[in-house]
């Protein structure tokens, strides 16, 4: 109740005093006003006690009007004025209380705006509640829709609920936590029976956290004095709960959105990962893109690369002996062997063409040669395995050429293909097919050799020049015998000088000299089929003779 004394009212320069004085003057009354203890306050200093009338406020006497018979009127007026002042002050206090609530809501909103995760929001909420409402402990409980269980994201003060008993008596807490109600509980029997609440807790106050579609949980405070919570406390708590609910709901939605966005990103990443297996990343990268989705019809780039072709000799007759399924298995396991070797040496497979593979080595010609040698060795190992199982063995030819190449996207708007187009590709393919002609396992062009910094590290033999039918220029080709059996490598190294001499004679049409050299070579190394080939060829040329313009250049025909 606001303090209100008569002295208080009379001493203020306000309407009360003015009104009273004008009334007294008008009535020409002789009055004095005293407090409840008869001390003078206002009016005539000479106090006449002919008439005495009390001034009352809420059934209590707070002063006296003493004087003539008109004191009655003055007393009535003052009583009325006091009552009005009293009511005014009461109203003022109520408004102030409401204003404090407004201030609290504003402040709480400000604080909530600082957090975007549910745990922080729960913590801010329970801290604010404990700040405004006296309690020994407080918790926020939330229902986790995904895991179908009750969570406690924030707790302040001593543990409100005994965790171990909570697990087995969750239903008691669920009743409060998901009731959707707000209330004060003074009868804690149910909670005590379930053993989840401490003995010193005497009363519990809680408010529901809910949004339009669902009940999310509740904020629960506990006090150690019985009946300590009033309706005003509940009002505060529900106001906090209301604001907190929408903040938590937004936070949960935000988390969900982030989660889903990450999942979508992951799904897209997996798609890109898979597309890279169909169109190699190197291809896309060469066109200047990071992702396949940027590629468009007509994109192209010219690069200098080494092109490598592999082919299984006489595969046609081999495949006739197998069922389609066996064929597929065969080619599959072949590809699975060769693929990793190519990638290991920084090449990438442009195409699988049945029993042939076309690979590109954009960075290093040397790498392609090393890869070729390793691939041949792998086939030797494969053949050894096949023999133990009485299965057929294979022979593989590899050809390499280096030159400019255009990589691009061709097709039509609804069907695209990553294509490589150039002479370089055709030449490389034909060089590979020459491996049969020369009975060599690996052939490379002089253009490829030019790119190799240390050719002396590789076992190479010059075999002469070749030319595409109808073209003018010819290119030299070399055999690499580094992948042959160890014995062969040693023998071919030994006979290298002789062989080279033989080639020299052969190209200069001195076939007799050539025959002599190649004969010596084949005598030392009976298994050198290339030398044997040149021997036979030289003998034929000597026998039949060659035209005037013969230069030893072999014409490369279509496969």
């Amino acid at each position, binding site marked *: 109740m606001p303090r209100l004394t008569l002295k*208080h009212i009379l001493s203020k320069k306000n309407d009360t005093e003015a009104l009273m004085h004008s009334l007294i003057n008008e009535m020409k009354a002789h009055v004095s006003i005293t407090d409840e203890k008869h001390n003078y306050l206002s009016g005539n200093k000479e106090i006449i006690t002919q008439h005495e009338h009390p001034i009352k406020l809420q059934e209590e006497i707070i002063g006296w009007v003493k004087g003539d018979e008109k004191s009655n009127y003055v007393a009535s007026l003052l009583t009325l004025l006091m009552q009005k002042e009293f009511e005014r002050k009461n109203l*003022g*206090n109520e408004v*102030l209380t409401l*204003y*404090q609530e*407004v*201030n609290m809501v504003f*402040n709480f909103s400000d604080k909530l705006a600082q957090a975007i995760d549910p745990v922080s929001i729960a913590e801010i909420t329970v801290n604010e509640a404990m700040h405004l409402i006296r309690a020994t402990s407080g918790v926020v409980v939330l229902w986790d829709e995904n895991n179908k269980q009750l969570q406690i994201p924030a707790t302040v003060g001593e543990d409100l609920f005994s965790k171990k008993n909570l697990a087995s008596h969750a239903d008691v807490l669920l009743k409060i936590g998901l009731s959707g109600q707000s209330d004060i509980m003074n009868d804690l029997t149910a909670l005590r029976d379930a053993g989840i609440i401490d003995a010193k807790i005497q009363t519990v106050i809680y408010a529901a956290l809910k949004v339009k579609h669902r009940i999310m949980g509740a904020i629960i405070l506990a006090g150690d004095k019985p009946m300590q919570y009033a309706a005003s406390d509940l009002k505060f708590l529900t106001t906090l709960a209301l604001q907190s609910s929408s903040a938590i709901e937004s936070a949960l939605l935000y988390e969900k959105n982030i989660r889903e966005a990450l999942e979508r990103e992951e799904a897209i990443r997996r798609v890109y990962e898979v597309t890279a297996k169909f169109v190699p990343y190197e291809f896309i990268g060469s066109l200047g893109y990071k992702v396949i989705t940027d590629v468009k019809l007509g994109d192209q780039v010219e690069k200098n690369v080494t092109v490598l072709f592999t082919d299984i000799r006489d595969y046609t007759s081999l495949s006739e002996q197998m069922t389609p399924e066996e064929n597929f298995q065969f080619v599959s396991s072949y590809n699975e062997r060769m693929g990793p070797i190519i990638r290991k040496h920084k090449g990438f497979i442009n195409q699988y063409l049945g029993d042939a593979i076309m690979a590109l080595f954009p960075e290093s010609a040397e790498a392609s040669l090393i890869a070729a040698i390793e691939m041949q060795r792998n086939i030797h190992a494969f053949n050894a395995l096949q023999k133990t199982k009485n299965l057929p063995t294979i022979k593989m030819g590899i050809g390499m050429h280096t030159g400019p190449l255009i990589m691009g996207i061709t097709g039509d708007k609804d069907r695209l293909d990553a294509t490589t187009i150039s002479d370089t590709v055709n030449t490389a393919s034909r060089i590979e097919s020459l491996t049969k002609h020369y009975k060599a396992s690996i052939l490379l062009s002089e253009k490829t050799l030019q790119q190799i910094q240390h050719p002396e590290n590789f076992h190479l033999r010059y075999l002469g020049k070749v030319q595409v039918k109808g073209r003018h220029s010819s290119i030299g080709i070399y055999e690499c015998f580094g992948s042959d059996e160890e014995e062969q490598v040693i023998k071919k190294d030994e006979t290298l000088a002789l062989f080279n001499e033989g080639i020299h004679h052969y190209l200069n049409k001195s076939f007799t000299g050539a025959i002599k050299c190649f004969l010596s070579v084949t005598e030392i190394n009976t298994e050198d089929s290339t030398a044997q080939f040149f021997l036979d060829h030289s003998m034929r040329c000597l026998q039949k003779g060659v035209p005037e313009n013969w230069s030893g250049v072999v014409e490369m025909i279509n496969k």
Partner: protein
Amino acid sequence: MEQKILIVDDEPHIRMLIEQTLEELEDEGVEFLTAENGEIALEIIQEENPQLVFLDVMMPKMNGMEVCRKVKKELALNDVFIVLLTAKGQELDRQKGNEVGADVYMTKPFDPEAILGKAREVLGL
């Protein structure tokens, strides 16, 4: 010397609320004065010399910033402690408040405890 507090706001309920908040000071001898616009506020300040003024910023005729500037900069009445009151979110006013010489800056809705505390502090009660 008699202690006076001047409350300046064009909204009557705000004037009433501040008076209500500071009510207990009345028993301690503080006199409350009110003004509903800047012009009247200036007159009262010059006539009555209040020690503390609660000054709303957003008012018709002459706003709080202008009043503050006149009092602090033009008239150089340094014994008057001015608390500027403004709606939350008008943080720019803080800067301007500094420029016109305000002593303290509070936002509305105000915290009644803060108002009372500041009054006691300034008046030494």
